[in-house]
């Protein structure tokens, strides 16, 4: 799992290859590290984790700005705190 800074206020997290609960756990822990307004691009290839992350973001008030399938089996989420 790689967590990188792309530019000021923008980060990316790659959790492909991992299964529950690690993708949702690390995504939310990374979100906790960010400040309000910052964005995180997440790559997940575990469908149930995408559902959990979406629900957790709704619960915490994080905005999912974009959701895409860059390739089969992989979901890219852009989340703003």
């Amino acid at each position, binding site marked *: 799992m790689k967590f990188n800074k792309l530019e000021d206020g923008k980060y990316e997290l790659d959790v492909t290859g991992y299964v529950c609960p690690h993708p949702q756990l690390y995504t939310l822990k990374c979100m906790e590290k960010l400040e309000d307004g910052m964005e995180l691009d997440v790559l997940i290839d575990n469908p149930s984790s995408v559902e959990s992350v979406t629900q*957790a973001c709704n619960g915490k008030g994080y905005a999912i700005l974009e959701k895409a399938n860059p390739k089969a089996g992989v979901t890219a989420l852009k989340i703003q705190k």
Partner: protein
Amino acid sequence: MADAIASSRHKIYAIGVLGFVAILSVLYYFSAPVYIYIIAYMWFGFIFGILQQYGRFCFASAFRDLIMVKVPRMFVGIIIGLIMLSIVNSYIVSVYPDKYIIESIGFHGLLGGLIFGIGMVFAGGCATGSLYKTGEGNMISFAVLMSLAFSQAIFQATAFDWFSRHFIQGKTLNDVGLTKLLFGGIGNHAAKYSFWQHLVGDTLVNAVLVGLLLLIGVYIFVVRKPFLKRRARQIAVTAGATADGGTAKTGFKDELAGFWSMISASRRTSIAAILIGIVAGAQIFSLAWLQNHYNFTNFGQVLAGKPAVGAPLPNGSKVSPTVPSSWPGTHAAYPDVSHNNTVFDPGYWYITTQEAMFGGWVLRHIGFSMSNNSYFGMDNGLPNPWLSPALLLSIGLILGAAFKSLTAREFKWKFPHSKAQWAYAVGGGTLMGIGARIGLGCNIGAFYGPAAFGNPSAWVFFVGLFLGAAISARYINFFANRKMASDDMDFDIKL
């Protein structure tokens, strides 16, 4: 362009999976018409697989995500599905009283649930969740399934009879079901109840009332505080206060809105839960009907070619001595079928025992003695996997999930790529296997099914599951925090 080609390739594979199941069904049927019984198991599994993959339906997620990331969607889904199954079930057992099953209540349920709960969180999925995830191409889940299969088989062949003598036999409360408690008949195995009596006892009390109390608990402890905080801010903003400073008072209406937001949070999980409950009920009904039609009470009798003459069929009539021409000509003998001419044939949605039988069958064929115990020897036998009814359900479930994930472009091969991933999968699967056998069932067989049948034993297993999941969740959370302890905003963590 490449994306479009990949997409159409996935669709072709999906059609291939569907065609494979259809061709297999035809081959079974023309081999012997009675095999429509195991074909039915397979197709119900296929539908469960589609629904589970669509709803991301996994019991590990219900507990783990609730504890670790405060997401109640799957917990809500389980309760919704349970209520639906229980309504259908109340009708079925009023028509087929023989299908009214009451599990024993005892320490084994709590301990089994605890061990199973610890295992399922480490494994990344419950028993049935691991099946559907295998269908998504997730070979980590397949490793979990294999660990589940072989750990159960070894435990049953070596330690279970000892455990049962010391911790189960003579140490359980038997025949205690909610309908019996409310309307009398505890200890009377022939007692029959109307649909309305089952609906009150099994559904309203054991499923709806307990389920509602649990949902209220989840709302109060997980959802309420953040929801009301956001709600108060929204009300203040609407009233003209500044977005960052103002808050307003919330009332009972807001509490109800919060509760509803929790129930309706995941549309796909709720839809899947409702349909799974209905399909699980339809499965019980269909299989009971087929048993009546084909003159057997357990599929082992078909394999052995020996009707259980005089045994009560689900509709109350007796098994006739005539061997129907629809049965196959081949006659399986012990240990393919048990001493009692039975194989594992639960007649409803069940998950772990059939994997144990697969593990036992493999071990037997490489030379281990597997039948000198009550589990394989007296009850479940060790049939060929392709004639093991419930295993066909598991295979159908994997294929159904593969079909659905391929059509949704969510299928992806995924293999364990580190020692830690192997450890989580094998360790978690092994704990689930041992827990399932100690608890006499998994999240489906010891919880979901019995809870719908009005069995208080299900809630004992549930408490164990919750405690076990909490222990694993705490460990994984601690591990994650330690890995991320550095102030550095960049990290590269390998599990």
